[in-house]
């Protein structure tokens, strides 16, 4: 396994190299000047600005100098936030996105797996039977539970976050005054954005769980387990879910990378000082260093979490061979 990890990390180097190169070159090649701001800049000042930000010479020279810096861990200074280095901006904003993202990630897993599992069980038992889950406790499963949950999951996937989030703000923050609408710094300010951020992921996980659990529940070994006289919760938790969880592990890798690096919609709407907004803003500001830096962070996360998901696969499922 160590060999695999080392090999995958080595593979990541050319990938990151290509991604950062493409980003830098594309931003520099796009029309628009990073320093322009509505008033024309005198040529003597323009020369200085380019010099300060190492943007002199041909695009190829700029690229070589930039890559030289990146290799040494210096992501250069931002052209938008003068006097701030990209390293500093990322160091300040990435942890914020990660805190918010991990709360949202946790919520997505919790709601996704629970609701997906619930939907699958109620699909199995379409009538208004009561299902025994925990020894002496029985859950009433509404007859249309499956379709109901799936409808919500579909809504969760298809309603864009820029519609959902403002609706949640109007309802929960402005009308009912339950939660703050904006800001960062106190624990109650994390709830609303984390909920909104988690919805599409939770919905996807719910659908995955349901589909996978329904397939597994049809398999022979489940019938055997039931025939053996195991309680329904033992069948579900000890046998079915452990197999059904595999596709969710596969999904959770890239999902973690996406959710931990923030979302521009959530961050601008809720005023969260995270890294997600730089993803879009730095590109429209034509800030080549900030854009490349953010892309570098995001691709590293993507590679890292996919690797983690693969390792998890290996740990959980013996059929997976790490070759």
């Amino acid at each position, binding site marked *: 396994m160590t060999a695999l990890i080392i090999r995958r990390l080595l593979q990541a180097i050319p990938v990151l190299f290509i991604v950062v190169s493409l980003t830098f070159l594309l931003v520099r090649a796009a029309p628009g000047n990073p320093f322009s701001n509505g*008033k*024309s800049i005198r040529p003597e*000042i323009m020369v*200085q600005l380019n010099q300060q930000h190492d943007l002199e010479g041909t695009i190829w020279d700029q690229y070589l100098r930039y890559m030289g810096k990146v290799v040494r861990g210096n992501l250069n200074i931002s052209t938008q936030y003068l006097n701030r280095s990209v390293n500093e901006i990322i160091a300040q904003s990435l*942890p914020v996105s990660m805190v918010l993202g991990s709360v949202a990630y946790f919520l997505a897993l919790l709601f996704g797996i629970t609701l997906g599992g619930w939907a699958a069980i109620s699909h199995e038992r379409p009538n208004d039977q009561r299902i025994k889950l925990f020894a002496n406790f029985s859950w009433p499963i509404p007859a249309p539970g499956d379709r109901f949950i799936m409808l919500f999951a579909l809504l969760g996937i298809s309603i864009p976050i820029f519609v959902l989030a403002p609706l949640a703000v109007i309802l929960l923050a402005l009308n009912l005054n339950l939660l703050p609408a904006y800001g960062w*710094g106190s624990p109650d300010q994390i709830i609303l954005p984390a909920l909104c951020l988690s919805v599409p992921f939770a919905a996807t996980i719910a659908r995955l769980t349901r589909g996978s659990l329904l397939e597994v529940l049809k398999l022979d070994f489940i019938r055997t387990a039931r025939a053996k006289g195991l309680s329904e919760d033992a069948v579900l938790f*000890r046998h079915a879910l452990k197999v059904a969880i595999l596709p969710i592990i596969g999904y959770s890798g890239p999902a973690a990378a996406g959710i931990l690096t923030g979302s521009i919609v959530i961050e601008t709407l809720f005023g969260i000082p995270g890294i997600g907004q730089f993803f879009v803003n730095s590109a429209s500001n034509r800030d080549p260093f900030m854009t490349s830096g953010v892309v570098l962070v995001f691709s590293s996360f993507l590679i890292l979490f996919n690797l983690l998901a693969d390792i998890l696969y290996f740990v959980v*499922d013996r059929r997976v061979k790490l070759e």
Partner: protein
Amino acid sequence: MSSAGSEQADRAAGVSGLRFPPTLVLPAFIAGALLLLVVFFYFFGSWTLSEKADLTLCNGDEPQSLDPAVITGQLEGRICLALFEGLTTRNAKGDIIPGMAESWTHTPDGLTYTFHLRPGIKWSNGDPVTAYDFLNSWERVLNPTTASEYAYQLYYLVNGEAYGTGKITDFSQVGVKAPDDHTLVVTLAHPTAYFLELTSFQTLCPVHLPTVKKYGDDWTKPGRMVSNGPYMLKAWRLNDYILLEANPYYWRPVPVHRIKVLPTNNATACFNLFYSKKTDLILDTRSIPSALVQDIKNQPYFHANPFGATSFIRFNVKRKPFDDIRVRKALALALDKQDIVEKITRAGEPVANTLVPPGSAGYTPPQGLVYNPAEARRLLAEAGYPNGQGFPDVELLYPKRGTSEQVATEIQALWQRDLGINTIHLRGQEWKVFLNTQDLIDFDLSISGWIGDYNDPQTFLDMFVTDGGNNQTGWGDPQYDQMLQTSENTADPVKRMQILHDMEKILVEDQVPIIPVYFWVGMSLYYPDKLGGFEPNFVDDHRWGEFYIPGKKP
């Protein structure tokens, strides 16, 4: 990882190949996510509890910098002017009042100003503010290595431009001298009537040079910055907040002790904050959702006042058909501006027939071209396009932000309605791309705007000097250039204003390289019983040191 027991269970259940104790899969997964959560909470100490402040305000986007020498934007300027103070400053009404300088005199020719600094003025670290601080800070602004985009504000000084462009390297030749600690003598190249406006502007504010030298680019960080204005920088978290605290060494008491500045680039979020009473003041027009203006403009917290900024359309006079003055005039005469301000912008913007906004002291603008569709149709027919027939395909360029897209659509519809031209196509571009296209004069028509740097017609009219960096129309007129030069050398204010009036007449009545559309209004939201010292003013410049909370003693 596997145990004999679980393998037995697996075999009993009829499935093999799972290594992990089966009942632990889900709990382990969730526990993992939880662990991740706890680790992030623990390690990244970004969880600072919200700082309390006496006044919280929304100031627009995250500032690009807080170095008064390099910033260019209005929102950065507002914060910098709370931190720094020039020789002069403004009161709540926007009038020029003494700042660091207690008094000043100037020679009758308007070329030499002598400023006398207040005795006992100090930086926020206790160091005295001296005339040399001004001298050295101005040197820093002019020095090409600082890359100050607003360095031209000091080109009014004798040899200022030569030093700024690197033609001379001896700063002692530049027209500013400090004979002693408390006196600053400034020699101007031309009698600049608005020079006292410039000295209140952030570019001419002093900075604490020992700090700048010590920390280099990092000197604007909290804990390092030393300032001389009413406030000092207490905390600054990117995209989170900026905290200002009253500077104990400022020469007069500051009524509001702590101000928290929220950088928000989303107007809806900003309004939500105000609506849920989490902010006391929104002072950035862009931070008020334009769709809401109509609904909230009668509320007691809504305030709007015209200020020195104009929205206008640029012609590219080098391209057909706009090389023909008759076509330009026809389009200008046929633009129903009333319709645009009533239907689109809707915040009470006055219609503009001139480039210079009304309200510049002592200036009477020309009449400009007033809406007259009949005359417009006549001119268009004369130019060879009766009822818009045969009018070539042209593009109307606009930036994709604010209400520009709706304004562009409306303009297109209005010209079709009144002139029958249906060959105007819209071309929206992202802000930075738009600026680039406009700079290259690669457009037919372009929706533009200009915010005056100071309260004088000059800041608008000098844009259109031949081949000027901000001209961007391809238009030029030697007579106009000549008049601009004459006006700069005229010390008599009445004569000077007359020249500027005649210049504007050329611009908006005779040659028409631009069509003024409307004057901007500065909008702000606050409850008057919760905030005082905020008054509508023509320069839309509200100094935070003037703010007070009614009923609360400083």
